[in-house]
């Protein structure tokens, strides 16, 4: 398992954010986090990072159900932004609606669909597959 530098969590649920950070810290998953509470927030900030050529996250854990701009909207906007760095995007959602899973597969940039809750084991397993 390679060591990840920056992980980005886009989720409006503070409990999930807290838990996810904790899990990743425990498993020594990454060095630092970027956290955004909705798609728009994330998009604007990531755009700025790209423009400023600062360090981008290596992976993004993206929730689908969010206020203001949801996960799908974020994806639609984000994949339009030209970016040299490859960012691995995981959709992490509590939705087990098959329609969502199928839709996720239509995005090339989305690596996997993780159904909440995540556990250390599952996280490790997913990353191992990379």
């Amino acid at each position: 398992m390679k060591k990840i530098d920056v992980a980005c969590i886009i989720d409006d649920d503070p409990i999930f954010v807290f838990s996810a950070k904790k899990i990743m810290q425990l498993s020594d998953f990454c060095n630092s986090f970027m956290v955004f509470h909705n798609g728009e927030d994330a998009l604007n900030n990531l755009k700025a990072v790209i423009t400023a050529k600062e360090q981008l996250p290596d992976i993004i854990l993206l929730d689908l159900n969010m206020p203001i701009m949801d996960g799908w909207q974020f994806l639609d906007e984000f994949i339009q932004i030209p970016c040299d760095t490859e960012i691995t995007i995981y959709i992490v959602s509590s939705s087990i609606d098959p329609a969502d899973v199928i839709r996720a597969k239509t995005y090339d940039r989305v690596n996997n669909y993780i159904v909440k809750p995540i556990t250390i084991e599952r996280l490790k397993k997913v990353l191992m597959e990379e």
Partner: protein
Amino acid sequence: MNYLRKELYELIKEDESIFDFIQDSALDGMWFWDLENPENEWMNPKFWITLGYDPNDMPHKTASWQNIINKDDLEAAVTQVKAHCENPSIPYNQTVRYKHKSGDTVWIQCRGMAIRNHEGKPIRMLGAHTDISNLKISEINLQRETVRFKHIIEGTNLGTWEWNIQTGETIINRRWAEIIGYTLEELEPTTINTRDKFLHPDDLIKSKQLVRDHLNGKIPFYECELRMKHKSGKWVWIADKGKIVNWTKDGEPRWMTGSHLEITKRKEHEILLTKYKDLLERSNEAAVIGTWEVDLVQNIVEWSKVTKQIHEVPPNYSPEMAQALNFYPEGEHRDTILHVIDEAIEKGINYDVELQIFTFKGHLKWVRAIGISEFENGSCVRLYGLFQDIDERKTTSLEIEKLSLVASKTNNAVIITNAAGYTTWVNESFTRSTGYNLDDMLNKKPGEILQGKDTNPKHVECIRKALNDKLHVSQEILNYKKDGSIIWLHLNITPVFNKVGEVYKYIAIENDITERKNIEKLNQERQTLLETILDSIDVGIVSCDKNGNLTLFNNATRDWHGLPVQSIPSSNLSQYYGLFKPDGVTPLSEEEIPLIKALQTGSVKNEELVIIPEKGIPRTVTVNGSKLIGEEGELFGAVVAMHDITKRKATEEKLRETLAKLEGLLDASAYVSIIGTNASGLITTFNKGAENLLGYSREEMISHKTMESIHLKSEITQRSKDLSDLLGKNIRGFSVFTALPNNGTYDTREWTYVKKDDTHFPVQLTITSIKDNNEIIGYLGVAAEISEIKKAENEIKSLLEVTKDQNLRLKNFAHIVSHNLRSHSGNFAMLLDLYKRENPEAAENEMIKLLGTASTNLKETIAHLNEVVLMNSSLKENMVYLNLKDAIDKAIKNVSALAEDANVNIQNSVDPKINIEGLHAYIDSIILNLLTNGIKYRSPERKSFIKFSSEVNDQNILLKVEDNGLGIDLKKYGTKLFGMYKTFHLNKDARGVGLFITKNQIEAIGGKIEVESTVNKGTTFKINMNYEKN
């Protein structure tokens, strides 16, 4: 009658001065003019006859004479009328020229007087015409004559003289003096000696003697050729003529006048005359002018070469007086020549006439004959003259004359005949309409060619008579064209008179009226057709004139009454013809008889009456009729048509009887509407139930309304469309109810009835036909109100709506479960996991353990709920066929560890060929559930087993899952077995969701689950599922 004529007659009666005025002035025409409506003017027949027109053709309008009045005279007349109207003291009296129909000018003395109302305003004008043409013509002729003489005198260079025998006063003219080279002034004062002084002495004696002879009455006039001395000294020859023109009271001659003609040249050239005579003959020859001479003394006739040529006689022909006249055709021409020769011989009047001769070779040609008589001693001794062939010129000019006559009649056929009736000319239009040209007709009598076998001899006679009497005749006659076809002509034959009042030709103008005649004939035929129709229909037709006298009585009516038509007073009609009211007892009063009623009130509609003839059968008839109005709005009678409805009446009676039998039943059904109609839809029965349901009373409906009146129009229209499509023919109106019953079936369907208060309610209506001897005489419609049923149906519908709504909410719920609940539960699990990792010692804490269990249970419950919800949203089209045995084996494998632990033996004896219809996930879930159930509820008291087996039948397969476990008390729990969250065991794992889900999943794939169970013996689940056939 024209209103003006009426008015005028009234006026004449009232006012004597008007009568006198008319008597005095209105010899040749009278008019009465409406000054308030100046376009209207009444003219009496004489007015038009004077002008040559047929009074019947001329409308009483001012416009009808405006084209034939002289324009200048019209202008003058307008001014004069105006003046007369403004000032009565200025009379209206004027000479006006009109153009006669023949083209001649007619001079009319026109006098008029304005008729004034009490305010003195002229409102009418009465006019009178006197034909003064003859007077006018004489006047003109006199004027012309005077002028002519003056011109002659001047033109002939005559010197004139007047001598008063008593006083010797002598007057001479300028020319008299000029002849002998003097001016008049040089000779003045003139006396009788003025003449004598210039006379040759020899001639003086001779002249004086002749004058004496004349004065003594020996000779009728004085005439002498004498010589007078010219101023230049030479002698000039004078032809001196004179006559006493005036006598004294005593009878003594007073004035003698005479003339001097210088004949010096003649005298000088008399010698040359013989030579010139020869020359003349030659030049005449060149000009085709012949000469002739009759020596009356010796009775010798001489014709020059050219004269002979004109007569087409041989050169050696020697004519005689009597023979010469035979060349002129009998009649007009022969008469004329005889007349003028007579005048020439008797009175010395020379003549110059244009006449026709028949030449020796029989050609008819026009000639000009000039005759001069020569007198010796007061009697004619010689007649001589010229003879010229003018046939070509004459023919041309006659043609022009004829053409001018017919110029305005180009569309009419024209024939001209001579006095004897032989055709001399026809126009193009004649040829166009009859096919005969001039060559066909020339010198033939038109009647002989044109008339044929169907020509009415009366018409021919009428024409012949008029022509004999030399009268204008107007007649319609059937003629034949050259091709033999019939042509109807309207002839107008006018005789044309010559100067001496003899007819010299007839002009016939012919109008082709064949078309009109054909129409007349057609009308006649139509009339016959109509009468035939009237007599052949079984509808009685009777008409009467405006006084109620019968004018028509067709066959049908005659048959019914069995009586001849008689003119009987309308008050007796009822009795005579046996007319009764519908009750068949009360006779109709006069004004109740439909014909009389129609005459008096204008129309009758559907009146019913009974005819009971003396002999024959009584009949009920319905009568329709109306009065008859002429073109001018006047009533001229009435007509009625009667339909025999005796049979229909009988049928209706029968129907009523049939329905009466049902009466009890009908009224018993107080809430079932039973409505009977006759064959045409009119309601005949209306039961209590119908009254209750529809709100109409029986009286309102029976015989007044139809079935359609209680139905919703839109439904009838829709049904009409549906039935028309169904039966392939147009079904409309009442037929929508009867189309199916007519075919022998009854027709039951839902309709909407419309109540009297216009509210609607649904009914189930059955319509059947009522038959009498296989003939449909009516219909019966039985309807039950189905409002309640409808209401229930509507409730079901709304429930369905609610269910749909619920379903939708359920889907939303699925979403909530799927996402929101899951995320919370996920968070719990994550947090607990993290907590345990960070605090490993807490894992032993009882509370944390229980919290862990609660979290896991929550997660599972949500998973179950999700499954339940998803199930309903699954789609039929996702169904596939899958092998049942394989699916069971797979599930057994999955639970093998569990089964081993629990020591349960699982057997699968399902037929490996069976493929069932379903969803993978469901089948897996169903089998797994049943397996785990069987394991969970095994009996600890015996060796447990679970057996899968299958049975196949036609429709589906039966999967049996049998165990020997704890069993379920079905009496206690049977109804709740497959409910949600029902558990029937104290098993700690039981959560009561499994069977609920299983049942639902089985039903979702079209299957069914049943259970048999005995407590402590075991349970068998029987699952029916669809399978793949073949």
